[in-house]
């Protein structure tokens, strides 16, 4: 588990920028479209996603490697992971309610939504598929969560600007939101190859 600082930065930054979960892998599109209207909501949702992603990875990675794989039942991954995530979300909610009620009040409504946020299950599965070590997995999950937050942050700004626009009848609502997302996702393409060069990968 020798992980240099550069390699660690590389994993986190590439999950944020070049492999952005929302804008290049299309994971977590529902909250990206649904909860990005107001910046506060977008940020609340993102913080909750980051927390759940990291905690879920910390739990699912050992389960896969020490519980499922040694018994030859790696294929149970999907069922086990989704149940673990659902249970975790419940636990985090109870924990926050009891010990950090302020945070619970802020994030409370987003937590139940996260169980079915495909970015969370996605990051847990992809960590296994990519054969990341435990530390690498945690870094990747953290980066992915921050990447989700970045996409939400950018898009919340865009939406605040175009909310009151006088759209053509057919493009009112979600259709124009998708076109706006299309333009937003363009700018992430400009960074391709950048991290590889900076970190000499």
């Amino acid at each position, binding site marked *: 588990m020798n992980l240099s600082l550069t390699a660690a930065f590389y994993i986190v930054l590439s999950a944020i920028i070049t492999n952005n979960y929302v804008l290049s892998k299309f994971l977590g599109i529902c909250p990206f479209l649904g909860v990005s209207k107001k910046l506060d909501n977008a940020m609340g949702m993102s913080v909750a996603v980051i927390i759940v992603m990291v905690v879920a990875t910390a739990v699912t990675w050992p389960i896969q490697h020490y519980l499922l794989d040694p018994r030859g039942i790696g294929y149970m991954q999907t069922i086990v992971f989704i149940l673990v995530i659902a249970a975790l979300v419940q636990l985090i909610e109870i924990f926050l309610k009891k010990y950090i009620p302020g945070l619970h009040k802020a994030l409370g409504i987003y937590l139940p939504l996260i169980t079915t946020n495909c970015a969370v299950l996605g990051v847990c599965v992809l960590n296994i598929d990519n054969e990341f070590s435990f530390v690498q997995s945690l870094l990747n999950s953290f980066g992915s969560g921050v990447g989700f937050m970045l996409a939400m*942050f950018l898009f919340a700004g865009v939406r605040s600007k175009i909310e009151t626009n006088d759209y053509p009848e057919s493009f009112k609502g979600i259709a124009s939101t998708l076109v706006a997302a299309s333009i937003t996702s363009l700018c992430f393409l400009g960074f391709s190859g950048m991290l590889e060069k900076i970190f000499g990968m």
Partner: protein
Amino acid sequence: MADMHKDLIVSAAPHVVSPADTASIMRDVVIALIPALAVSTYVFGFGAIFLTAVCVIACVFFEWAARKILKRENTIGDWSAIVTGVILAFNLPVNIPKWMAVVGCFIAIVVVKQLFGGLGQNFANPAIVGRITLFIGFATPMTNWVITDRMSQAIINYSGPDAVAGATPLAINAAGGQLPSNLEMFLGTINGSMGEVSTVALLIGGIYLVIRKVISPAIPVSFLATVAVLSLVMGFDPIFQLCAGGVMLGAIFMATDYVTSPITTPGRIIFGIGCGVFTMLIRSYASYPEGVSFAILLMNILTPHIDRITRSKLNGVAKGGAKA
């Protein structure tokens, strides 16, 4: 917005009071682009004028057709489609297949502008998005640079005397080849996107716009200064970095778009610095040799946030002071 003064008209940026004002501003922009077109015609031949004409006609047609189909007021009289057409043409290689240029015009006018409600309601600069989509979508034709005998000997030599396609100074720089002199870079006897080659011509246009008070110098100055400073820090030649690629065209004509850049001067300076930083990051590290358009698009997207932060400090002052 509830505390808006009643005597101010509440409308989307750029707070244009009447179409005539937009038209006169846009006319000034077109005038400011003429020196660059002249140099491009000298360097590339009449193909430069032809490409510009194709883009202008396509943009005006799409503007007219979109408004017609949507049963909205005809807006081709505000000259904005003409400006978009000229600027988009300036962002393309001179020998690009013309139908691709028309696709770019469609994206710029219809997708980026009219789908969002028309001028003043788009969140990204139409010409920038048109350029980026073509650049990514038609990667090979968009980087097919012609060589003419009017160009710097360094450019001609780099590709060999019989070559039809050459490399831009930025690409030559990345490959470590012999670069044109800084004077040639400044005058524009180099290849690249059609209208971006001549630094001096674009600067003349920029000075004209500043004198006519069409643009504020905040964005171009902070953008260019950031590029220069970062070049020094990173050990590059700042003159070369400023003259190469689309920095001048972007800083003077695309980053200054009222609709998609911040309203306050502090906001504009942040915007310009951001453009410069991302341009240099992409130029130095990303797979693409040039990052101006990506940098401006990213800052376009960040503009609502910049406005939110800077406007809260200058509440009320900035809003009315925006360009009319």
